[in-house]
C-alpha cells in the first residue's frame, strides 16, 4: 500500500477528511520550503502537494504564476525540489508528498531519471497538469514500478467515459478541479460540486480530492462534506507572497489559515 493510500484509508476509517495544502517549491526562497512543509504538517496537513515551478504555468492564475516567478528567480529546478523532499523526508516519513507541476521539466530530466530520483527522494505521487492519461503511456509504467502514484485531474467538462478511463490510470486519489478556470479564480458553486463528486464516486472507488476555489474554513467544510479531501492552494500562496519578508510571521499566518480548516473538516466527523 502506498503512503497516500495508507493515509487516506486511515482517515476514512476515522470518518475524517484529508486536508491537502499546496505550496510552490522555492517560494519565497528555496531555503524556506522544507521548513514551510513542516509548518503545513504541524497545522494539520495530511498530504502535501508541492508545486514544481515552471516558466509557463498555463493552468494557473496570477497568484501561482507569481509564485513560480519568485521561485525561478532563484533558479529552483526540479532536481532541487527533489532535494527538498529528501530533506523533508529525513524528519517526516509519514506525510505523503505529491509533486504538482507541468511536464516539460520532467521531460528535460528524462522520464526514467526523474522516476528514480523522485522515488529515492521519497515522493509519493506525481500530478502533471498538462499530461492527460493518453500521453502518459511511456511514463506510467516507470511510476508504477517505483510505487509512485500517478494522480490525474477530472474537470467539470470530463465525460463519464473519461472519468472511468482516467480513474483506471490513477492511483492514490483523483483530483477534481471544481471550476472551469485557473487556480485561485472564481468562487465555487458548492451544490454543483457536490453533485459532480457524488457522481464521480459512483464511477470510481478511488478517493476524490477537490481543489480550485477553496479559500476558507467554510468552503473547506462544505466541500469536505461531499469529498474525501480538500486541496488548498492559492490562498496559501497568496499568504506566502504577503509575508515573504518575515519567515516567523509567514509560518504563523499559514498556521492561522490551516488550523480553522482542519477544525472545520474534523467537526464533520463527529
Amino acid at each position, binding site marked *: 500500500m502506498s503512503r497516500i493510500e495508507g493515509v487516506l484509508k486511515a482517515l476514512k476509517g476515522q470518518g475524517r477528511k484529508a486536508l491537502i495544502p499546496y505550496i510552490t517549491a522555492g517560494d519565497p526562497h528555496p531555503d524556506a520550503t522544507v521548513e514551510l512543509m513542516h509548518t503545513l504538517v504541524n497545522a494539520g496537513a495530511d498530504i502535501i502537494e508541492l508545486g514544481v515551478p*515552471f*516558466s*509557463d*504555468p*498555463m*493552468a*494557473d*492564475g*496570477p497568484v501561482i*504564476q507569481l509564485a513560480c*516567478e519568485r521561485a*525561478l528567480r532563484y*533558479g529552483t*529546478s*526540479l*532536481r532541487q525540489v527533489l532535494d527538498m523532499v529528501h530533506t523533508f523526508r529525513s524528519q517526516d516519513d509519514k506525510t505523503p508528498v505529491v509533486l504538482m507541476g*507541468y*511536464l*516539460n*521539466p*520532467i*521531460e*528535460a*530530466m528524462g522520464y526514467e531519471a526523474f522516476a528514480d530520483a523522485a522515488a529515492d527522494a521519497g515522493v509519493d505521487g506525481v500530478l502533471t*497538469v*498538462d*499530461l*492527460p492519461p*493518453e*500521453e502518459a503511456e511511456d511514463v506510467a509504467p516507470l511510476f508504477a514500478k517505483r510505487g509512485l502514484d500517478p494522480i*490525474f*485531474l*477530472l*474537470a*467539470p*467538462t*470530463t*465525460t463519464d467515459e*473519461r472519468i472511468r478511463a*482516467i480513474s483506471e490510470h490513477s492511483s492514490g486519489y483523483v483530483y477534481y*478541479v471544481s471550476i*472551469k*478556470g*485557473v487556480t485561485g*479564480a*472564481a468562487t465555487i458553486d458548492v451544490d454543483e460540486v457536490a453533485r459532480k463528486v457524488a457522481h464521480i464516486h459512483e464511477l470510481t472507488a478511488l478517493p476524490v480530492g477537490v481543489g480550485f476555489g477553496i479559500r476558507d474554513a467554510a468552503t473547506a467544510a462544505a466541500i469536505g462534506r461531499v469529498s474525501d479531501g480538500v486541496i488548498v492552494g492559492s490562498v496559501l500562496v497568496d499568504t506566502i507572497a504577503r509575508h515573504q519578508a518575515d519567515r516567523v510571521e509567514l509560518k504563523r499566518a499559514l498556521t492561522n489559515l490551516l488550523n480553522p480548516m482542519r477544525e472545520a473538516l474534523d467537526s464533520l466527523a463527529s
Partner: protein
Amino acid sequence: MSVKLTEEMLKALPDARGHFGAFGGRFVSETLMDSLMTLEREYLRLREDPDFQARFDQDLADYVGRPSPLYFAERLTRETGGAQIWLKREDLNHTGAHKVNNTIGQALLASFLGKKRIIAETGAGQHGVATATVCARLGLECHVFMGAEDVQRQSLNVYRMKLLGAQVHAVESGTRTLKDAMNDAMRDWVTNVDDTFYIIGTVAGPHPYPLLVRDFQSVIGREIRRQAMEKAGRLPDALVACVGGGSNAIGMFYPFLTEEQVALYGVEAGGLGLESGQHAAPLCAGRPGVLHGNRTYLMEDENGQIIGTHSVSAGLDYPGVGPEHAWLKDIGRANYVSVTDDEALEGFRLLTRVEGIMPALESAHAVAYGVKLAARMDKDQMLVINVSGRGDKDIHTIAQIDGIEI
C-alpha cells in the same frame, strides 16, 4: 538522409492522437480535453463537407482575394545571378499576410459549432488583426491577448484591432511577449470553454490545431503547384519560407511533401546569431520538449524552463514551432536554417529596392536565405520564396534602426 513520403503515409498523419512521429499530441489540462475532442470530431466531419469547403473557398476568393500571384522576380534573379527566383505574394492578401487564410477557416468552424465568442493570441499583431477582421465580418465577439511588451512595440496593429471592434488584453506575466499571450489565451479558454472558440494563429498547439491550420494554409502550396505548372511548365526545385510557429511554411510545403525533387527550406530567426543564444531558432538550436499543448522543438534551459527569445521580427519571436516541422526535420524531408536580424534587414532592403516589394520582416528572413540559396543554384533552376506578409507594419522598426524619426 531523407525518407520517401507517399500519399498514404501523409494521410495517416497526424495519427488518431495527433502525433507526427514523436511530436504533436494533446498536452493540456483536463478541462480542455472535451472541447478539443469535440473540435477534432467536428472538424474531421466538416473537412469532408462540401458546403463547408465551398464557403471556405468562396471566402478565400472573394474576401481574401485569392489566388495570390506567383510572380517572377526578374531583377532580383538577375542581381542574384543564379536560379530563377519566384515570389508567392501572400502579402497581397486582405489584411496583408497569409494569416487570414487560417482565421477565415477557423472562424467558419466556430460559426458551424455555434460559438459566438472568439479569443486569439498575437505577437506582432498580424494574427490579431486577421482574427479581429473575420470577427467583424461574421459579427463575433473578439478578444485578443497580446504581450504588454508587444502592445507597446506594435501600437499601430493594436489600434487596428480596436477599430475592428476587438478587445485587446495586454498580458503582463512572464516575458510579456507571444508565449505569455498564448498562456493567457489558454487560461481564458479554460475559464470560458463553453461558449468560446480559440483561434490559434500558428500551426502549433494541441491536436487538432496543427492539423486544421495546416489544412487551411495548404492553399498556398496548392496554388504554387498549379501556377508553377501554368507559368513555367514545371514544379519548382526549391521552396523557401520563414518559420516562427511555421504556418506559412507548412502551408507552402505540405502539397509538395511527396515530391522528393522539390527541396524545402524553413528559415528560422537567427537573431543576433545562433552562437549568441539571442535568437528564436528552436529547430536549429533547441531540443524537444512540451509546451502549449504539443511536443516539439523548444528553446529551453537545462532544467526545462522556457527561455526568452530574440528576433527583430516580432512574428518569429516564439520559443516553439509546429510539431509537423519538428517531424519533417527529424525525417530529413525539410531543411531548417537560420538567418540573422542583420541578414533579414538586408533581405528587406534588397527586395524593396530591386522589386518594389516591401516584405514583412518575418518574410524578409525567407528572402535573405532564398537569395543566398539561388546564387548557389543553376540558372535553369527555379526557386519560390513565400512573401508571407507585407512590410508596412515594420516601417517604424526599420526607421528606428536607421535612426530616423517618423
